[in-house]
Structure formats: C-alpha cells, structure tokens
C-alpha cells in the first residue's frame, strides 16, 4: 500500500532533488536559470525540507534545515504536497512573494523538462543521448527513493531496520554513483562513490541500469551474467533489494 508520507518524501527528495542533475545534463535547463540566483525551499511536514538553490546556471539541492532561501513554500501535509505534484493543489508561499514569477515561469519550465526525462516516450528513447540522460536521472531518482522508502514506508522500514549500520555503495560503471548511509534503521542517500562502504552494488553499464530500473531486464539474470554484481556484506544488499522492489510501487 502506498504511504502518502513515503510518496511525498520521494516526490521531494528523489524527484525534485533531480533538478540538481537536470541543470548539469540539459542545456535548455541550464539556459533557463543562467541569469537567476534564487533558492526555493519546500517545507513538508514529517520530513526534512528541500532547498533548491539556483545560481550561475547550476542547481544545488540540500536537505539541511539552515540553508538560505528566497522563496519558501509550505504544505499542510504530505498529501497536500503530493497534490501539488499532481497539479491538483497549490503550495502556500510564506516567503518570497516578489519572486513568485521565477516559480511560475522558469521553475515550471524546468519541471516540464524533468518530466520528459523521467516519463520518456518510446520515441524519445530512440535518441541515444536523450536515453542516457533519462537513465541517469531515473537512476538517481530510484537510488534516492530507496532511502525515502526505507524511512517512511511501513514494509520499507522493516527492511531498513534489518540493515546494519554502515554505508552501501551503488554505482554504474562510468555513470552515476550514490552512497546510502544507514544508522539505526535510518537511511540517507548522497551522491558519490564510497571506497570504505561495507557493501557494494555495481551495474556494468548505463544500459544495464536502464533495463533493470525500467523493468525490461531481469535483475537475477543480470546477476548470473555478471552485469549486476554485489560484494561485501550481503545481508545489507539483500535488505536493500527488498526496498528496491518497492520502488516501482511509488514511481509507477
């Protein structure tokens, strides 16, 4: 069963967080924010806020409560935030009333570009460069969603609680890498490879990651073929896989 809180956490900290990578990968996105210096904070109850800071054609995502913001958007509940994402309701601005134009114009345009990558058409995926970027963003979405499901979904919390404290590194050869840090059942995803992790999961290349994350490749068959490999503390990976199997429930 989909938890509204887990869904909101995914919408916030795995999907919207992608703005950071979108502005690196997509030239249109970069151009849209080239001359803007704005920071937007999304405050959703029951979870850390997300601040997206745009400056010099780059975006930085932060979940630190003390980050500077120019625009603050408040939501009354996780469900309210999910309704905003699906276009049913509006946020409640509590700061930055004179900057709302950026939100309505540039930020809205960025969201639309992001959607083309995260919900690509079959036609779009025929373009190899677009498909690769789409996979990178999809991979980051899924990798960051793992922590949100582990922290907020009822079954996800059970699996997260079975993961011993330490870092799990997930990477795509010559592609994105994230490190998931687990402490007392709480998970936190951050970008980058971690050599000191206790457990490792590697996708042989971006096409394998694409196939597994989109469900067109069988992950077990990929393990047998050496296209998806694991090492280190396998119980950590086993429990992470249980959470990974819940990702499509939320991202479908």
């Amino acid at each position, binding site marked *: 069963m989909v938890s509204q809180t887990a869904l909101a956490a995914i919408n916030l900290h795995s999907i919207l967080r992608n703005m950071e990578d979108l502005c690196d990968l997509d030239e249109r996105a970069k151009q849209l924010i080239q001359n803007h210096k704005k920071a937007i904070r999304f405050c959703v109850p029951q979870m850390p806020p997300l601040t997206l800071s745009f400056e010099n054609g780059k975006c930085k995502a932060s979940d630190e409560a003390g980050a500077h913001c120019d625009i603050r958007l408040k939501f009354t509940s996780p469900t309210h935030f999910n309704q905003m994402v699906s276009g049913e309701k509006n946020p409640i601005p509590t700061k930055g009333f004179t900057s709302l134009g950026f939100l309505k114009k540039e930020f809205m345009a960025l969201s639309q570009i992001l959607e083309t990558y995260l919900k690509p058409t079959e036609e779009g995926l025929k373009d190899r460069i677009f498909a690769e970027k789409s996979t990178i963003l999809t991979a980051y979405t899924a990798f960051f969603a793992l922590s949100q499901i582990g922290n907020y979904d009822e079954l996800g919390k059970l699996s997260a609680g079975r993961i011993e404290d330490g870092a799990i590194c997930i990477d795509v050869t010559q592609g994105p890498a994230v490190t998931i840090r687990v402490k007392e059942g709480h998970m936190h995803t951050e970008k980058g490879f971690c050599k000191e*992790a206790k457990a490792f999961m590697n996708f042989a290349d971006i096409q394998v990651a694409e196939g597994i994350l989109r469900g067109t490749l*069988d992950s*077990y068959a990929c393990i*047998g073929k050496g296209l998806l490999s694991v090492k280190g503390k*396998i119980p950590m990976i086993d429990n992470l896989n249980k959470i990974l199997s819940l990702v499509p429930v939320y991202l479908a």
Partner: protein
Amino acid sequence: MKTYEYNNSQALFERAVKVIPAGIYGHLGPSEGCFIPVSAYPFYAKRAKGAYVWDVDDNRFIDYMCAYGPNILGYGHEAVDEAAAKQFREGNCTIIPTEKMVTLAELMVDTVASADWAFFAKNGGDVTNLAVMTARAATGREKIVKFIGGYHGVAQWMQSLGYPGIIKSDVENVLAIPFNDVAAFEQVVAEQRGKIACLIATPYHHPAMADNQVPLPDFWQKIRKICTDNGIILIIDDVRCGFRLDVQGSDHYYGFEADLICFCKALANGYNISALCGKNFLKSAASSVFYTGSYWLSAAPMAAAIETVSILKKINAPQMLLENGRILTEGLVQKAQKHEFNLLVTGEPSMWYMRITDDESNVLHQRWISECVRRGAFFASHHNLFMNCAMTQEDIDLTLEIADEAFGVVAKERA
C-alpha cells in the same frame, strides 16, 4: 596452479535465463548462492563421484558444500545407489506403500535417541512445517518461538515481513529471540503465557552470513526445562546438522531430548526424503494433521535412507567428519596466518563456518573464497561448509595447497 574457466556453464546459463526464472533459482543459483564474483564459479555440473563434482567445462572441484548437506557418504555411493536401484526395479511410487516404510521407521526409532515414531516427506521444510502443525495440534496454541536468523525453510511463516510474497498474517504468530539467551526465552514465555505452542531451533546456531554459535553450557538443559514446565513443544530442526554431529540426533550430542526432531539432507545421501521423528505423546497429534504429498511414500528414497543410515552408524560417520573437519580447519587457519590473515572458524568442524576478519566488509573473504573455487576447492563465502565421508587426507592436503595459493593472491592484492 591452473585456474578454471567456465565457457560452457556461461553458455548454458544464457539458454536457461530465457526459459527459467533467474536462470538458476534458489540456493544453487548465482544470486542466492552468493557467487561473488560470478566469473569465479561454475553454474552446471556434468557428473559427481565421491568428494568431487565435475562441471560442464570438465573442471573438477572438491565439493565442500556437499550439495548443501545431502552428500555425506560421497556422491554416487555404490551401496546406496544399488539399494535405491533395486527398489526402483521392484516398485517406487505405488498405490500403497512398501515394507521399506516400516523398516525405515523402525531404523529411525532404533537410531535416534528421542524418537518413538517417524513420519516421512520430501524436503526439510516439509517436516519443519509439520512439526509446527503437530505442536499446534497438540497444544491448541498459536505462537511459534524461534531464534533470530534461524533458518527452517521457505514456507511463509519461516520468512519475514518485507520479503516478497509475505503478508503480516503469515508471520504475526512468530516470535524471534536471540540464540543462547535463556533470559530472553523466559521473558517471552512470561509475556505469552499459555499461548506458545513450540520453540523451533537448530541444535546450534548456524545462520548464513554470520559467525556460528555453539550452545553455551547448560543452555539446552535450561531451555528443555522451561519448555517442559510450560507445556511448550521443543522442536529441533536437525535438517542441516543431522548425522554430522551424532547419529542419535544432535539433541543427543548436546545432552538433551527434543520432543520433535526433523531430518532431511544427509538422511539418504542425496535421495529425496525427509523425516519427522517424535515422542509418543505427540504421535496422535501427528496422525491428526492432514499432511501428505504425491511422492512422500515413494520406496526408492526409503531404501536409500535405510542403507545410508546403516552405513553412517557402522562407520561412526560423525566422528570421522568432526575429526577430518578439525584437521582441515586447523590447516586453513595456519595457511591464513602464513599470509598474515586472521581466519575465524566457528560452529562444529564437520560443518564449520569461516570468515577472514581482517576487513569489516567481507570483501577480502569473498576474494579468497573465489580464488579457492577457481582452483578447484568449492567453498561458499556466506554459508557453513560441509565435510563428507569420501574426503581423504589427499583431498585435505590439496585443499590446503589451494587455500595457500589463494591467500597468496589476495595478500598480493592487499599489498
């Protein structure tokens, strides 16, 4: 030393994934079997004899997994195979059972110290599940107590919430406590007074991917008394340890008596049969449980079991396995020390668990195991290993030579 390649295995796997979920599902497959990395392991066997398995690339391995336990006398044991073959010729899966069923039950009762009767099925999970159903039928209670990490099969109640296919109601009556913790058992018994049907446990704690724990002195005697005092059925899952510690049952080895005891794996040296044995006071409860299967009373595996158990008793197999396991594990520890690794060996020597403790992640251990496999010693990195009666001193010496060279490879990488 030559290292192996697996071109035929990999080609066969390519065919398999097209028509079989996961290519090879379950514990024999590369995923659940923790083939790390997969390139170090064979996927398919061509033949097996004694202590050895040959893969489809004609590489020979000393099999220290023993098919995860069933191979106890050696693959293709002539006397066992002949007993089974004779029974196949005479009649196997028939409309009424054969005399072999009675003979095997009598043999089990005469062999297993705590057994007054025997019930036969196919896999270990069949009889661990039957044991729990019998306990519930006898007590009218719902709750099952087990030890954290204890493996008793794959039925829903044996898994955990969050695992694919498992729902809350499957596991809500299962309570898990730490092994070797009498106080935890006393506490759960006090909290659930009158509700606990059984405690199910392996005779010593041998979970996968964790150091194994033998029982503390008096642990089982204290647990036995608490069970008796509170009307809780004590079930020993001897599926994995059975006949590798004591032919009379692993409860006998540790000096107590189970109410119900489950056997499978080594019972028939690879023929498919399992057994639940129990005390008289539970016989009518076992009869009352509706529990059967198309092949459970097949006679050929029973003939194989009769021959296997008879030989195991005659040669005192557990003593041989424990002793050879001790020689091998001491040698492995010495080889590790030579290369400045610390190899920790836990559990009982006939089915020991080992782990290089020099890195927290197990990556070094997985590397060493993979280099051993590539050279012909089939170990698993995540699970206890097994000895069998066909292994010779020559096999042990070769294994130590392989281990030495494999440690050398890993030591060089570490440097």
